[in-house]
């Protein structure tokens, strides 16, 4: 029960008793209580003449980093006897240092600051308002309000460094990069030998071939190495997002996408991103660190989605993923996905699937039971069959056990894929 209500009830009861007994002494007992209420009502501020200003040290940071927040409240009206401030933090944000609230008295024109340091897991957070409660000196009555003080904080996933990924799309771009382009030109890898043409530099003459046939000089050709367009497609469809005890498989997918983007951009490729399941949330292809930042920001806000736009990935714009480029699909994979991936393959894309294994992820959280091994075996068989189908259709798949390093999983899988010849892209 609030203090004001209790006091009101006591006054009322004493008044009723006094009236019922026609005893003036009860009215005398009422007087201190009535004066207390009267003084409290008289001292109560009519409005909350306070404005709140929020200053966030940075608008984007990476997981594990912290950001300093300063909240300034300025009194533009008459003096406030008691003011209680509580900053309203969006969910999952954690205060690493400092405190988010205080009690103070605020004279006219003065200001007070609340400063603290924040940490948060990946996500996009919006600070909307700050809760302020003012009261008179006795604290019997108070007035509350939420003062607008907007700020936005983006916590980007921290990308782990990967070794270069040996992708082989059919189409490469015009700039030098790490992908052999199946064309002769400037490069370091031997490509072939052709007859000498006037103008060929002497240092490229193949002297061994000329030694055999002195009348027919030959020139050594090198294979051009180019960069490529790479489209990252992160599966955020709600039905494919698996959550166990507050941990989501999507987090692994997001971190894998961030690591792949960082690695591919570092190699010089042009990389774009589509959040599959969130409608038109995409990042058009681009190069360099700025693009990496754009992708990380898009990944910061990645969460489960139900959008049916691009439901089957059939009609996305060619500007997003140019034809015959490399697509990397990061998804735990669902039953019907192989048809969609085959269609992409038929359209000429080189498709590479990085699949965080939902079976091993879920098993780690399950209690043991007699039937569990059998159930695990069945779903593993089902999954193996799905991956087998994809590989038979010329799609490279990496079944990533999320408790292992992505880099190791990728390169172990790459070796076997390389031996099977799937990375030729045109196969």
């Amino acid at each position: 029960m609030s203090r004001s209500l209790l006091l009101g009830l006591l006054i009322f009861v004493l008044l009723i008793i006094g009236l019922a007994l026609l005893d003036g002494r009860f009215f005398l007992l009422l007087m201190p209580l009535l004066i207390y209420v009267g003084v409290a009502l008289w001292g109560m501020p009519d409005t909350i003449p306070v404005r709140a200003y929020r200053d966030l040290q940075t608008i984007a940071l990476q997981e594990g980093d912290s950001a300093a927040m300063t909240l300034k409240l300025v009194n533009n009206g008459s003096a406030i006897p008691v003011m209680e401030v509580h900053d309203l933090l969006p969910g999952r944000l954690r205060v690493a240092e400092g405190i988010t609230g205080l009690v103070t008295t605020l004279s006219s024109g003065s200001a007070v600051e609340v400063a603290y340091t924040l940490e948060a897991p990946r996500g996009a957070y919006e600070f909307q308002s700050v809760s302020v409660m003012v009261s008179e000196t006795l604290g019997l009555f108070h007035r509350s309000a939420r003062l607008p003080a907007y700020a936005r904080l983006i916590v980007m996933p921290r990308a782990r460094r990967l070794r270069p990924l040996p992708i082989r799309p059919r189409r490469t771009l015009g700039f030098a990069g790490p992908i052999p382009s199946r064309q002769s030109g400037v490069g370091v890898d031997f490509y072939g030998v052709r007859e000498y043409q006037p103008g060929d530099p002497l240092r490229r003459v193949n002297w061994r071939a000329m030694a055999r046939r002195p009348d027919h000089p030959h020139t050594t050709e090198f294979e051009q190495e180019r960069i490529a367009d790479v489209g990252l497609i992160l599966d955020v469809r709600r039905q494919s997002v698996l959550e166990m005890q507050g941990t989501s498989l999507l987090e692994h997918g997001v971190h894998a996408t961030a690591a792949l983007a960082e690695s591919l951009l570092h190699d010089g490729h042009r990389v774009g991103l589509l959040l599959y399941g969130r409608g038109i949330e995409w990042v058009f292809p681009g190069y360099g660190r700025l693009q990496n930042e754009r992708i990380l920001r898009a990944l910061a806000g990645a969460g489960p989605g139900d959008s049916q736009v691009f439901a089957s990935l059939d009609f996305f714009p060619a500007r997003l993923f140019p034809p015959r480029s490399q697509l990397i699909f990061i998804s735990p994979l669902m039953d019907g996905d192989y048809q969609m991936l085959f269609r992409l393959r038929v359209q000429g894309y080189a498709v590479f699937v990085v699949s965080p294994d939902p079976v091993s992820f879920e098993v780690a959280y399950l209690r043991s039971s007699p039937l569990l091994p059998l159930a695990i075996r069945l779903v593993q068989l089902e999954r193996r069959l799905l991956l087998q189908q994809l590989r038979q259709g010329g799609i490279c798949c990496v079944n990533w056990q999320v408790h292992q390093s992505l880099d190791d999983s990728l390169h172990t899988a790459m070796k076997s894929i390389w031996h099977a010849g799937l990375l030729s892209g045109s196969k």
Partner: protein
Amino acid sequence: MKIIRQIFLGTVVLAVGAPALGVALRGVWMLTVAFGVLGFLWIGLSQRHRFMGFVFALCVAGIAMAAGLDVGIGWLLVGITAALAAWDLEAFSARMAGVARIENEQALVRDHLQHLGIVCAAGLFLATVASFVRLRLSFGVALVLSAIAVLGLGYVLRGIGE
């Protein structure tokens, strides 16, 4: 905050001591003991802030009972004023303890004690003065005044609820 605690203990002693003395002078020992127990209860539960309203209400109820027993009004006025002050100070302590940071703590405490002191002094003074005033009202005037008081109080309560 130590000063608040000391004043709180003093007001609790007054809140239960003065009515207990008044009741004892009337020879009602049961209620005297009850006030004594209430004093210990109040001090014992003073760190558990959710009971503060309950103990205050008990004290007011005891004082009202004492008023019904024709105890001297001076004892009761001192008691109810001190009880009000004790209840206020306990609520103030609870509020201060509930926040991690207090700016201008000295000014807050000083202002609060000043206001409370003025309220208690004014309440006690006016009630004492009023206790010497004798007015003879006709039944009609008394009825109208009662109606105004009840309606006014209802209005205040409604306002508080909102």
